[in-house]
């Protein structure tokens, strides 16, 4: 087991992964890569939960991770189905193409 000193580093790691995921979502114009980046963010959140659970030696962290996991699974399946539909209809995965829901049109 790693010593408690470095337990804070786990949070640090989760933070770094989360930031990278966030950057990934914003940088890429292809929806697929955005979805991947979201997965990274979810994973880093799970990491943080597990670290906290380990720190306080309670099972809640791991249970929370389980819920995140199930949620991620459901989300990916729906997300990918959507991506397929988008590709099917718009022939492109470029996010900037999909902007019918604009608000500023008078």
């Amino acid at each position: 087991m790693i010593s408690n000193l470095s337990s804070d580093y786990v949070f640090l790691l989760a933070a770094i992964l989360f930031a990278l995921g966030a950057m990934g979502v914003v940088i890429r114009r292809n929806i697929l890569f955005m979805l991947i980046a979201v997965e990274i963010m979810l994973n880093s959140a799970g990491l943080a939960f597990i670290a906290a659970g380990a720190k306080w030696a309670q099972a809640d962290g791991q249970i929370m991770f389980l819920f995140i996991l199930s949620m991620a699974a459901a989300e990916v399946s729906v997300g990918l189905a959507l991506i397929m539909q988008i590709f099917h209809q718009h022939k492109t995965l470029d996010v900037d193409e999909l902007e019918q829901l604009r608000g500023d049109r008078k």
Partner: protein
Amino acid sequence: MENLIWLLPALPLFGFLLLAFLGSKFNREAIAFIGIGSVSLATIVSLYLAINFISSPPENGFISQTLWQWMQVNNFKVTITFHYDALSLVFVFVITFVGALIHLYSTEFMAHDEYYSRFFAYLNLFVCSMLILVLADNLVLLYLGWEGVGLCSYLLIGFWYKNIKNGIAAQKAFIITRIGDTSLAIGMFLLFKEFGTLTISEISQQAVSHSSSSITLIALLLFGGAVGKSAQLPLQTWLPDAMAGPSPVSALIHAATMVTAGVYLLARMHTIFELSPAAMHVVAAVGAATLLIAATSALAQKDIKRVLAYSTISQLGYMFLALGVGAWWAAIFHFMIHAFFKALLFLGAGTIIEAQHHEHNMFNMGGLKDKLPTVFKTFVIGSAALAALPLISAGFYSKDAIIWYSLTAQNGSPLLWLVAIIGSFITALYTTRMVVLTFYGTSKTSLSYQPGVRMHIPLIILAFLSVFAGFIELPHNFGHVTLFSGFVGKALPTTLLKIEPSESLFQLIAAIVCLVGILLGWKLYSSNREKVIDLESGGLFKFFFNGWYFDNLYKVLFQQPYFFLARINKNDIVDKSNDVIVGISSWLSNQLATSQTGSMRWYVMGIIAGAIMILTLQLVL
């Protein structure tokens, strides 16, 4: 005997209700019958009451009858009670008697008018509210009569409502008298605050022992009410325009009864006025000023009814002068005599106008002396009374008493006496001018109509009264009959004399002034018309003709600003301020709408920025 008083206002009211609701059902005779019937019955009742009252005067000088309790909130108690004493006896007698004569006259005068029943309904309602006014025991009931009379004068002035000008004249009368009524109302509020009651008898008892600073203010406010109703100085512009109504209306309302309501109010509230000499001086001063202004304006008028209107204002000026100086009974005596001869003059003028195809301008009339003999004779008697022809006309005795008291009574002063004398001189002048212009000279317009007997009877009776009514009150130096002042004195305080100069000397001066006026008038105006016209073309006459331009002054001071304010603010600036708020909110929503660009990455960045903000909050707090 008490339980007859309620009949006085009830009969005309019953007549009004009958004519108002079932008017269209009756034919002309029935309408006339109801109209005159109700008022003459009231006259009979008033005569019966008067005789009983004079023969067996009740112990405390008045009889009263309570009908029902109007309103009672904690200590404020108002009942519908009629108070009948010497003062109201005189007023009731004049109102009912002159009213009946005028009703008789108008049955023929309005014979061919299509709204016959409406006219008599309004007249009856007027007589009823005037009787309520003079019989009221408390000021609230008096206010009821006061406003009722104002309403009826509005309805009757604007009787021929098809012509817009009559409507405007009626509105003017109602609004200006309403200003006076408001000042009366405020006076009543102040009175209630001081005395805790509005019943006139209680106020008189408490007034004596009650010394407080606001008595003068109360007196002035009550006088404000009187000024509004009796067309005295500040608020007199409505009476000349009120001539737009039919002549019987002018005779009844704007000569005999309504305009003298102010005099009655002051006489009834004399205890308040006695307590504040300052107020008495104001009353006298206003009376004198009105007297002069009205007399000069009457001198320059061309329309016969406007001459009489201005002369009414000036005679009222005399009455207020008398009240101001403390000659209470003289004012009431002049009121009675004035009622007779002014009603006579108005009815005469009505006949003349009716006979001349509704010609109002005196310069187009003339030579009626032989065409309308009875009208001419009665008109001359009336004018003599107006001009106060010494010894024979009743006007002399009543006006002379006022001129005498204006010098010698408690608040009298030589200046007031001088103004009164000048006033009587101008009165004599314009009266002869009126008589000469209408009756003498060559006749300009043909005679379209000979007045019937129902017009002549009232004229003759009134002429008789204009002469013999004066003899019930003769001054000290000859005859010394004090029937009237003795009788009215019971309800009014006695007039104390300040100084005792020789009365006969001053009577002589007054008589000479009057005679000089008549002769001068005769000489000036009986020459040919052109000379008279150019005599009156001067700037001064134009100034007098417009009633010293009071009308235009009020138009500029009050009417135009109010109209302007109402026009520009028609759709309510407060409403516009709401639209400002609406405008701001819609502009704001447009600005925010541009932030929805539709690009996914912009929204994600928004989310991240939100996350950062929350974290910074976490750091900061």
